[in-house]
């Protein structure tokens, strides 16, 4: 066992995950470090290509060739997941860490009844046996907000709406009582009304079951209302880790400030939005030094040299920037 602080559930340290395509090496996740406490909801935000999903897949060890976890440690419940055998890892997936994906239709088997799919998860992980499996399945369907679990049990995925399918996935993710849920943009494919219901349900469920959650999204509004802490990613790096209240009051990283101004500048009386200039760099053509420096309003000479390291500026507040 590796010693961890009492309340820590997951500790990711110096994670590097790269994709080796031909002669190019795409460093999708670069020196990412963060911890998640028991019962904590951690919002992982960033734009497309920032490395959020690859980070999640690395934790689950679901990075497939040509991708590979190059280095780092992922200590979960006292064990480094990167040192487990594939067989041991299979036990962790599903039973200790549950995952909810973005597209609920592709994540469900179209020719199996809803109840059978949930029951299968419970049986594989050996949580219950015999009649207990069916009972547990009906209980889970009720927990994710279905008034008529018996009817849902015998339905097929195509008979459900997108929001209902996402709830079934949620039921499967929590079915084995995991201590961590990883939700990767679970509401992006849904319309606004359904999204709002699913987010409400997810919050309530994770809270009442005492689970921790990594919630991956590009939508700052969702993080604001769901997370306790937030990790902001840019170009494969985590550039800021902060408490949600502090991040939304006064983000540390210039990129965070720019994002908040360009999203929430609407509500003020400003005539124009303060936009971040330039565009998101491709991972194959990253600038030197701080990856944000070509777009940064506070850029200094030092920013173009070596890349800044993550620095703790106050308790639970980390930033990767030479301004601090």
């Amino acid at each position, binding site marked *: 066992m590796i010693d961890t602080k009492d309340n820590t559930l997951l500790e990711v340290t110096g994670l590097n995950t790269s994709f080796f395509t031909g002669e190019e090496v795409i460093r999708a996740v670069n020196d990412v470090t963060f911890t998640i406490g028991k019962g904590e909801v951690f919002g992982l935000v960033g*734009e*497309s290509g920032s490395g959020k999903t690859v980070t999640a897949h690395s934790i689950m060890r679901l990075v497939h060739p040509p991708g590979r976890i190059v280095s780092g440690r992922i200590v979960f419940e006292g064990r480094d997941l990167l040192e487990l055998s594939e067989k041991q890892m299979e036990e962790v997936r599903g039973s200790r860490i549950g995952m909810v994906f973005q597209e609920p239709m592709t994540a469900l088997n179209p020719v199996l009844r809803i109840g059978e799919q949930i029951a299968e998860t419970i049986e594989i992980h050996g949580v219950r046996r015999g009649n207990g499996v069916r009972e547990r399945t009906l209980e889970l369907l009720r927990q994710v*907000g279905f*008034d008529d679990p018996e009817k849902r049990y015998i339905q097929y995925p195509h008979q459900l*709406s997108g*929001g*209902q399918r996402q709830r079934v996935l949620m039921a499967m993710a929590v079915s084995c009582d995991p201590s961590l849920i990883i939700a990767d943009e679970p509401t992006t494919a849904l*319309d*606004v*009304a*359904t*999204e*709002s*219901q699913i*987010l*409400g*349900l997810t*919050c*309530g469920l994770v809270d009442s079951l005492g689970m921790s959650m990594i919630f991956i999204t*590009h939508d*700052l*509004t*969702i993080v*604001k*209302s769901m997370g306790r802490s937030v990790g902001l990613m840019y170009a494969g790096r985590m550039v800021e880790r902060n408490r949600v209240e502090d991040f939304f009051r006064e983000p540390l990283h210039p*990129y965070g400030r*720019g*994002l908040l*101004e*360009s*999203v929430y*500048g*609407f*509500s003020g009386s400003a*005539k*124009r*939005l*303060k*936009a*971040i*200039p330039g*565009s*998101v760099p491709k991972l194959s053509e990253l600038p030197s030094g701080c990856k944000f420096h070509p*777009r940064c309003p506070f850029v200094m000479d030092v920013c173009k040299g070596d890349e800044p390291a993550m620095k703790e500026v106050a308790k639970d507040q980390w930033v990767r920037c030479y301004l601090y």
Partner: protein
Amino acid sequence: MGPLLSVLDVRKHYEVRRTLFSVAKETIRAVDGVSFHLGVGETLGVVGESGSGKSTLARCVLLLEKPDSGEVVFDGVNLLAAGGEEVKKLRKRMQIIFQDPYSSLNPRMKVREIIAEPVRFHGMAKGKPDVEARVGEILRSVGLDEDFLKKYPHEMSGGQRQRVAIGRALATGPALVIADEPVSSLDVSIQAQIVNLFLDIRESTDISMVFVSHDLNVVRFLSDRILVLYKGKVVEIGGRDQVFLNPLHPYTRMLIRASRGDFALREEGTNGTGSRGCPYYDKCEDRTKECAGQAPELRGGEDHRVACLHAS
């Protein structure tokens, strides 16, 4: 002066088979009796979730889809009754900007050709030097320099491509621009740049705009008036501040709450009402028995109207 554009009771229904092999057909009422007016220089924001009929409405206005019934009157001419030549002449003055600038730009054309094509086609400039000058001017107006003339779409970022698409739409000097989710496919940090570009266009021209988006914040920032669409029907329409500060329809209120990150916990409704009742009945928080029996009419004053039995 009358409105530039009047859309009157436009309907567009599609018939689809319920499953691959079924004989029974289901009617999708994508746009179901929508009416609105748009004045010169005015921007109308159209909001609604996916499937509400926003895009179909946008396409019907430009006759990219032929409405089943209704009238689309542009500059005094009913497009549905007008002849082909007349529509072509009016097309020059109506342009559309799509969501995805990658699929809306020809990948084999350089930016110069992409913008020069409509300039030549609609006879906005004649002779090579004039066309070149016009293309350069348009490019600058969307915030790109002359280096971009030689680029292909794949050599540009999403934001730059969307600037080119906007430039192409402005190239014919249109009176009406319809923008269908023009920022949704862009990275968050780029969206604000494009929103500012639309703001510049609004301020420096008297182009009328229909701005379609599911993002209430963007719509609020850019629009003079707001139209809220739900299942192909207008549920609320009014001045920007009337709608945002005093939303009358439960659906509008839900959208505004969700845009602030205030999420509801509520069981999804079952399809109980059929086609007779209020389209929002299934999901409504304020529904009563009466709502299941009759579809509410749009009512209220000229500056703010709502389709809800319970709105006061």
